[in-house]
């Protein structure tokens, strides 16, 4: 409160600025005007489109302000320049050149903080091409703090932004909180219900036998990268216009419009990829139609024909510009994609005939309409509408050899006779989801003069809707999958899954003021997300108000700025957490497997546990960061310290279940028919059992320091140096007390089971530096880059384990809590959780280096080849774990790949 008051005072005390104007025009290498180029002005946050004469402006600019101007146009190398507006009326001439390695300034690394004031990295087309990516995931290794990876589409690809690897639940939470926005509309994974019930002894939240990213973030391997013009990754406090994310937002712009036909063929030991595209302008030159195709086929082991992944994507784009006097641009895209991952064991090798497949087929329609107004009150109105239909089909099978035993089949609470199942049978389970994701956004931006200052005001609203109407998870009840730890398994239809709605409003103001005579830029916004479930039983999940604030103070204009940001981000758990479906507990009341089949009898009680929809809640993540960036001695640099927390994110807990099991008396053992039991139970006993349920129990604390330095080119050797890296410390814990139902098998006569305190997790840290040497030979159209990556710190240690119980649960379900003084008493010795001391040791890996080499060579404009080698020296040291005494091999395997590209 007090802080807010000071802030308001400061704003009003700052004197207003005298305005100057900036205008200009954009031309190509033949001095012809380029209409439709995007001109972005930072830090004032304006964006303009050049008109039919290539001109733009005038735009008001605060006095003596360094303005960063970025101009981009499909197929041309982007221009990024810093100017000092000194005259009252400043006119700029901006020349663009066709993208080519012949150009001296080819950028093959990510660039920091290009747009907005929150920390972000922008990766442009040339940098993407230099990575030679199989998918979007490969591109993201250019972010500060990310480690180099070998391109792979053989498993689902996710990313941890500003987080060191810790627990799997912590990673899942971060991946769930990473949002992917393509061409203005989010790619939602919130309706992905491709799950499985956990098998015996696997931990809660384990992955199904087939590949699935249900409950996590979008599978990044499904997004090809050759059609991407630009990727921006917001890691800091995002603008209020970005929601439904806690760990980062990945903004992707794919190409659309007119461009020359291009073809790319890429191969590495695991995969073969072909991509190509063409964009044609349709006369009169206000329309363009483009088509992009991409195909990849990959195998984890090239000798193994039974396992693999293939992806086909096709995107048809239509761009309509210059409507209403060049004021309206309409871009629409129709995307079709098919992703298929299969795995099968060789029949000769595996009598169990294990196999699985996971297929995702999607249709996506995305429309973006942008209207640039002449009005003084309104600069731009943008509408984005998208619809995504995803047909997800997973299948797995196994010829199961088990024992002759119970195969309960009841679907509701009941007690009855069930036949003994056979020991050998084939299980086939399908999981069929039909995910629907709808999205729209309406946003206006305007430039208003208030209190003598220029304010850029953004107002918008969004609606996200996720639903799934699939047939669900199905199998033959008498031939179930390998069964669960004490819990039963039943099919589930998705027909009763509620719809997940997120209705959002946001507003943001960007303006500048002065502090001690230096410009101070503000980006202040607020966002409200209202989450609710629709369907048969609608319910509200709550509304989250999220303030977002970023400020940048140009201490020495063009040379040194200080930045600070604070904001609250919010995310709703995906449908798999919100609608977990029922759980089943099967109790055997009477188990009588007589030698004579006619005399056998099996009485089973099935308890159905209905887990309510909306049992988990949306969660928030406050973020704060402090940074400095600028350009000193010709080197541009950026240094950001951050602290992000997530409290009560979704996760799974193994919940204890007190089962009252009825016991029957045998009245008679007739020969040739089953025993005759008493009509009603004669006694009950209590069993301690368990099932898994989603809850809000996951916490994350990420703190760290990210840095990037772009050293100036050493002209004599045409080499430039780029340094990025991060120190990240992650604490991932789960809260809430937990019981240990397995205890009862240790002390079968025990009257109680112990409860242990929550807060168990992993604390980990990672520090890396990635040094890239970029050698350019424009005359030879050649770019070579060498990455020297060092991991200085890589460590993790378990936290929060305690030996003493905090309470007990007896067979009637009554809980008693134990104080620390009580828990140490000898009568509770049996309830202690013995912890092997070496399991609590810290794994500290020694420093590790990696050298990767990449090369791009053009023979003519847009024609050439590229090549890379990862881990050139094949440096793969062994690390001996202090906890398990086993060895693991570190670093990437030696890997290489090549590609040919051809442009007409």
């Amino acid at each position, binding site marked *: 409160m007090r802080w807010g008051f000071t802030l308001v005072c400061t704003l009003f005390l700052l004197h207003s600025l005298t305005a100057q104007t900036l205008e200009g025009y954009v031309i190509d290498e033949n001095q012809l005007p380029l209409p439709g180029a995007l001109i972005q002005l930072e830090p004032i946050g304006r964006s303009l489109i050049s008109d039919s004469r290539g001109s733009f402006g005038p735009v008001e600019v605060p006095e003596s302000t360094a303005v960063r101007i970025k101009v981009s146009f499909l197929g041309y190398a982007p221009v990024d320049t810093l100017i000092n507006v000194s005259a009252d009326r400043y006119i700029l001439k901006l020349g663009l050149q066709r993208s080519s390695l012949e150009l001296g300034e080819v950028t093959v690394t990510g660039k920091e903080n290009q747009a907005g004031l929150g920390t972000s990295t922008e990766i442009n087309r040339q940098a993407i091409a230099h990575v030679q990516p199989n998918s979007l995931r490969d591109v993201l290794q250019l972010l500060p703090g990310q480690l180099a990876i070998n391109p792979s589409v053989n498993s689902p690809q996710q990313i941890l932004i500003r987080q060191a690897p810790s627990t799997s639940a912590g990673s899942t939470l971060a991946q769930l909180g990473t949002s992917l926005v393509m061409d203005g509309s989010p790619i939602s994974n919130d309706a992905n219900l491709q799950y499985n019930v956990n098998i015996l002894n696997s931990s809660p939240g384990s992955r199904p036998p087939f590949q699935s990213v249900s409950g996590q973030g979008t599978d990044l391997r499904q997004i090809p990268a050759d059609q991407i013009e630009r990727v921006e990754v917001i890691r800091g406090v995002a603008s209020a216009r970005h929601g439904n994310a806690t760990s980062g937002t990945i903004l992707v712009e794919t190409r659309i419009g007119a461009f020359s036909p291009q073809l790319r063929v890429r191969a590495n030991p695991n995969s073969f990829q072909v991509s190509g595209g063409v964009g044609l302008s349709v006369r009169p030159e206000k329309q363009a139609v483009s088509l992009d195709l991409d195909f990849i086929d990959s195998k984890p082991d090239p000798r193994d024909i039974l396992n693999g992944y293939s992806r086909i994507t096709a995107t048809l784009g239509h761009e309509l510009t210059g409507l209403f006097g060049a004021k309206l641009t309409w871009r629409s895209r129709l995307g079709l994609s098919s992703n298929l991952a299969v795995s099968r064991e060789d029949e000769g090798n595996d009598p169990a005939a294990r196999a699985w497949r996971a297929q995702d087929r999607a249709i996506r329609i995305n429309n973006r309409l942008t209207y640039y107004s002449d009005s003084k009150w309104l600069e731009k109105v943008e509408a984005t509408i998208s619809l995504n239909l995803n047909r997800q089909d997973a299948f797995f099978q196994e010829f199961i050899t088990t024992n002759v035993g119970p195969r309960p089949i009841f679907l509701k609470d009941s007690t009855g006779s069930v036949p003994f199942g056979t020991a*050998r049978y084939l299980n086939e389970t399908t999981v069929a989801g039909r995910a629907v994701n709808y999205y729209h956004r309406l946003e206006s931006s305007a430039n208003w003069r208030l209190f003598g200052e220029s304010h850029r005001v953004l107002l918008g609203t969004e609606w996200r809707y996720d639903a799934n109407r699939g047939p669900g998870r199905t199998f033959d009840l008498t031939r179930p999958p390998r069964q669960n730890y004490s819990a039963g398994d039943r099919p589930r239809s998705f027909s009763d899954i509620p719809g997940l709605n997120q209705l959002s409003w946001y507003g943001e103001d960007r303006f500048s003021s002065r502090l001690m005579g230096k410009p101070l830029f503000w980006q202040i916004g607020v966002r409200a997300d209202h989450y609710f479930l629709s369907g048969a039983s609608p319910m509200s999940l709550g509304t989250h108000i999220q303030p977002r604030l970023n400020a940048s103070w140009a201490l020495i204009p063009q040379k040194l700025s200080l930045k600070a940001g604070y904001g609250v981000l919010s995310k709703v758990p995906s449908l798999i957490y919100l609608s977990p479906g029922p759980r089943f507990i099967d109790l055997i009341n009477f188990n009588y497997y007589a030698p004579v089949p006619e005399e056998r009898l099996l009485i089973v009680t099935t308890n159905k546990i209905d887990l309510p929809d909306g049992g988990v809640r949306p969660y928030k993540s406050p973020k704060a960061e402090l940074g400095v960036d600028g350009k000193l001695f010709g080197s541009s640099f950026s240094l950001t310290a951050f602290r992000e927390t997530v409290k009560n994110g979704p996760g799974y807990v193994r919940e204890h279940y007190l089962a009252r099991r009825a016991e029957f008396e045998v009245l008679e053992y007739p020969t040739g028919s089953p025993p005759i039991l008493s009509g009603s139970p004669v006694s009950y006993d209590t069993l301690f059992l368990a099932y898994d349920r989603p809850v809000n129990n996951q916490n994350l604390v990420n703190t760290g320091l990210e840095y990037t330095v772009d050293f100036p080119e050493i002209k004599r050797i045409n080499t430039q140096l780029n340094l990025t890296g991060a120190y990240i410390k992650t604490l991932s814990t789960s809260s809430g007390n937990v019981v240990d139902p397995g205890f009862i098998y240790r002390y079968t006569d025990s009257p109680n089971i112990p409860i242990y305190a929550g807060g168990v997790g992993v604390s980990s840290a990672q520090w890396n530096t990635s040094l890239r040497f970029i050698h350019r030979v424009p005359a030879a159209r050649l770019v070579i880059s060498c990455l020297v990556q060092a991991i200085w710190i890589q460590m993790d240690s378990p936290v929060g384990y305690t030996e003493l119980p905090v309470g007990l649960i007896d067979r009637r379900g009554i809980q008693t809590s134990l104080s620390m003084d009580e828990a140490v008493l000898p009568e509770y010795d049996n309830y202690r959780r013995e912890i092997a001391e070496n399991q609590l040791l810290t794994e500290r890996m020694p420093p590790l280096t990696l050298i990767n080499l990449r090369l791009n060579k053009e023979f003519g404009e847009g024609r050439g080849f590229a090549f890379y080698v990862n881990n050139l020296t094949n440096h793969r040291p062994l690390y001996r774990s202090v906890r398990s005494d086993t060895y693991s091999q570190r670093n990437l395997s030696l890997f290489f790949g090549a590609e040919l590209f051809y442009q007409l």
Partner: protein
Amino acid sequence: MFKSKLTGLLGVFFFLCLLGCDRDDEPRLRAFSAEFSTLFPEDFEVGQAAGVTVRLKNLASGSQQEKVTDAEGKVVFEELIPGSYELSASMTLSEEQAMALTGIPAGINLNYLDNSLALSEELASKGPISVQLSGSVTGGLVIKQVYYSGSKTPEGGNYFFDQFFEIYNNSSEPIALDGLMLSNVYGVSGQINPDQAPSPFQDDKDHVYISTAWRIPGAGQDNILQPFTGVIIAQQGINHQAEEANPGSPVDLSNADFELFVVGSTRDVDAPNVPNMEMVYHPFNATFSLVPVFGPGTIIWRTDDFSSLEQVAIPDTSPTFPQVVKVPNSLVLDAVETLRSEADGAYKRIAASLDAGFAYVSNTYTGESVIRKSASVDGNTVYQDTNNSQLDFELSATPVLP
């Protein structure tokens, strides 16, 4: 540029190889002799043990020598070359001999095993190498047969619910079985996966670390085992050869004497005609009572107070992993070690004083069992028990049911 660098690297590599070869060029191996001195357990009346059979096996060549110690308890092996050896010694004391040495009128088996002795001329020159025997009382109940390998289904699947144990009364007196414990010893059975380490409790020669405990029910005299007869304890006491089970199984266990039904399991099957053992300790598997198909370590033992035994956490496992129970060797009546193969001796879990060797079958799911060698004494079948499974057990292509 890269080519020259590569050539350079290769050059350095060859140079290093040459250096390496240089070092190996030492004088020829010299054969030597080594003297061994066998000693009785410390609480015996006499120290030097005469008439002990000592075996020395070169682990590299497989060649084996066997000699008997002289009156001084000494024996000399000649023409040895430096290397790793398996040194074992064994002796069976008759009741009379035992009476003289210990004052206990019962046969005693004495054993010694060191399965990786680094023998060199230097070690041998330091004087006789001592071999301290340890032992346990013979007679009474023995584990006669263990069928753990499981069987193949007609489809080629793996079936392991037909496992069983046989306990035999090797004495001429009836023995009450009530309260007898059957336990599985914790630890892997061999190099099944590359990173598998032997049991972390291997070095404790005075205890057995068990992961299960099953007790024969009864008030004390309910289950009497007559002399020279046995009982079958099945994992599941059903006809495993039935169509709904596994027609490929070698056994019909519907006539077993006891079965190991897991209380609270929603998966196990309970045969009404086969009494259940009492489940005393079973934290590792909530559904079945199976033992490793690669070879379990099995003990039969007795205790008056199970809950007083120490439970210990297993090193290298997560904090929530179940614990094992520490059983003193003195409570153990008989122990049988089985391991994955002849080459997996390093994975032995049971101390040499209880079982100096180990048995093994040819492979998993072969339907083979291991069974004690027998002899006929006065028309009764007596099973060999020298506390060395390597010598006492033989492979049986199919399990033998009474």
